[in-house]
């Protein structure tokens, strides 16, 4: 029951996201013909768009057609790249996932450890770490990226400034290529994770502190378990599930972050594709990316929620 409701919600959310992009494209100056064909399309192209998308038909028909095209995975055609939008996005996927997945893992694990470390032993150190975390939280990723590049690339010279590979380099073995890839992704991942890690740490701290006030934690302490053991072995597992759910809810922030990070580090990912396409007024690509990204985030959140329910049946019981 919970599963069905959750999936139905995800489907509606994706549909709303698709409808919002449709609405925006029809509200835009020049309407959908310009939105799909691009402002700088040749006259022939615009007529072709009108014809191939059937934009001379009534609005509800166009809308249904758009939704059914999306459902079939047809995201339209980019006149700038002369390629279908779907294949453009797929081509960029590895780079974006290569930044996002490590950044999410780093923010999740690092944030939990940092949050546990900032739990009070006495008041003063907690306040110091707390203030430090709050300060870091105010550091936007595009500033953090600048600081990281300054320190590691320009001063220490240990990591590359930008790009995904060195075009001047000699041909490399697969092993060397792997290392080069890792070296190029280290700073982007760090910059993306830095802002989120503080959020996860603050969240962990609050949640675990809350669990520690529950009767079971008090009982474990009374039984003679050390504070450390009570926190890590008893309170943290119980606090972890809501932390995981909220990390899923932060996914949107990671997606927004990759757009900025890929631009700074000149990485050929989806975020940079969205930005360059937006600047070039390549509307089908931007629309496609918005729909795909929204759908991906909604889907992952649905999976996280279903997993959380599997792990803790009380969640399903409470919501159903």
């Amino acid at each position: 029951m919970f599963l069905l409701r959750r999936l139905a919600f995800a489907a509606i959310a994706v549909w709303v996201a698709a409808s919002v992009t449709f609405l925006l494209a029809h509200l835009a100056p020049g309407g959908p013909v310009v939105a799909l064909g691009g402002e700088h399309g040749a006259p022939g192209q615009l007529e072709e768009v009108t014809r191939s998308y059937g934009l001379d038909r009534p609005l509800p028909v166009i809308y249904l057609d758009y939704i059914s095209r999306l459902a079939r995975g047809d995201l339209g055609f980019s006149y700038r790249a002369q390629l279908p939008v779907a294949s453009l996005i797929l081509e960029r996927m590895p780079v974006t996932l290569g930044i996002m997945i490590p950044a999410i893992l780093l923010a999740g694990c690092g944030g939990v450890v940092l949050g546990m470390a900032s739990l009070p032993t006495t008041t003063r150190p907690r306040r110091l770490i707390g203030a430090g975390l709050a300060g870091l939280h105010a550091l936007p990723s595009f500033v953090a990226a600048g600081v990281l590049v300054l320190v590691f690339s320009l001063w220490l010279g240990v990591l590359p400034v930008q790009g995904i590979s060195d075009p001047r380099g000699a041909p490399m073995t697969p092993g060397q290529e792997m290392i080069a890839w890792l070296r190029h992704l280290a700073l982007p991942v760090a910059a993306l994770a830095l802002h989120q890690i503080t959020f996860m740490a603050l969240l962990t701290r609050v949640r675990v502190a809350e669990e520690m006030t529950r009767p079971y934690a008090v009982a474990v302490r009374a039984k003679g378990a050390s504070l450390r053991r009570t926190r890590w072995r008893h309170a943290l597992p119980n606090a972890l599930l809501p932390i995981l759910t909220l990390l899923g809810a932060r996914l949107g922030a990671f997606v927004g972050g990759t757009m900025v990070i890929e631009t700074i580090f000149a990485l050929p990912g989806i975020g940079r594709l969205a930005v360059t396409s937006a600047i070039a007024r390549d509307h089908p690509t931007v629309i496609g990316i918005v729909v795909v990204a929204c759908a991906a985030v909604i889907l992952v959140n649905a999976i996280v929620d279903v997993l959380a329910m599997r792990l803790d049946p009380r969640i399903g019981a409470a919501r159903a």
Partner: protein
Amino acid sequence: MNARNWSLSSRLAVAALLAIFVMCSILAPPGGLTALPLGAPFERPSLAHLLGTDDLGRDGLAALAQGGRTSLQVASIATLLALALGTFVGLCAGLGPRWLDETLMRITDVVASLLTLLIAILVAALFGGSLIGLALVLGLTRWPVIARIVRVESMSLREREFVRAAIALGGTPSRVAMRHVLPQLLPTMLSASGIVFGGAILAEAALAFVGLGDPALTSWGQLIAAGFTFVDRAWWSWAFPSAAIIIASGLVALAADITDATP
């Protein structure tokens, strides 16, 4: 942390710094970067140019103040819009019948699942980068934060004696909501709007940073991006805008924390 953790002096310090930011952006020269007078490029910070000059010799402080004004305008419009929508939805959900609550909260969840920054990119691509467009996108997609907080607060207020008394005395739902519940919600709303405000400052800067801001206006994001290209010979044109956005968003977060009255 909450209001009780903050001493009077630290509250005054936050208020004073925020006031300085607002004053600077009010006194900023009108127009965008192109309206600023040109001079000697890459001058170090000095008495003549407190924050140095950029590659075209424009005064760093003037540009920073202009950027502050843009941030302030976008964030204010977005926050007011989100506050109005979020409070309305939150009050209806918190005080209304159960079916209304269910419906409104599902709508809230759907809106919260939209990716604000990507939609802002789409709007910038379709309509051109504009301050109003961005503020509208932020306001129309960020209200769920406020709605959820207002809903939870008004649900607990609904059970309090003075609200029940107001209902028992025959107060209409809208009167109870506006005259009895809403005033109690003000501190919560103020603190929640801080979250939206800070987020709007960062979103505006991020969009301008990647080159999708309002081309007619100066933005901190744009200054940071431009400054970083010659950071090796003019650190100040990168460092000061970066510091400004950290301090501004930090201050807003602190202010939100201070106004948060929940124990």
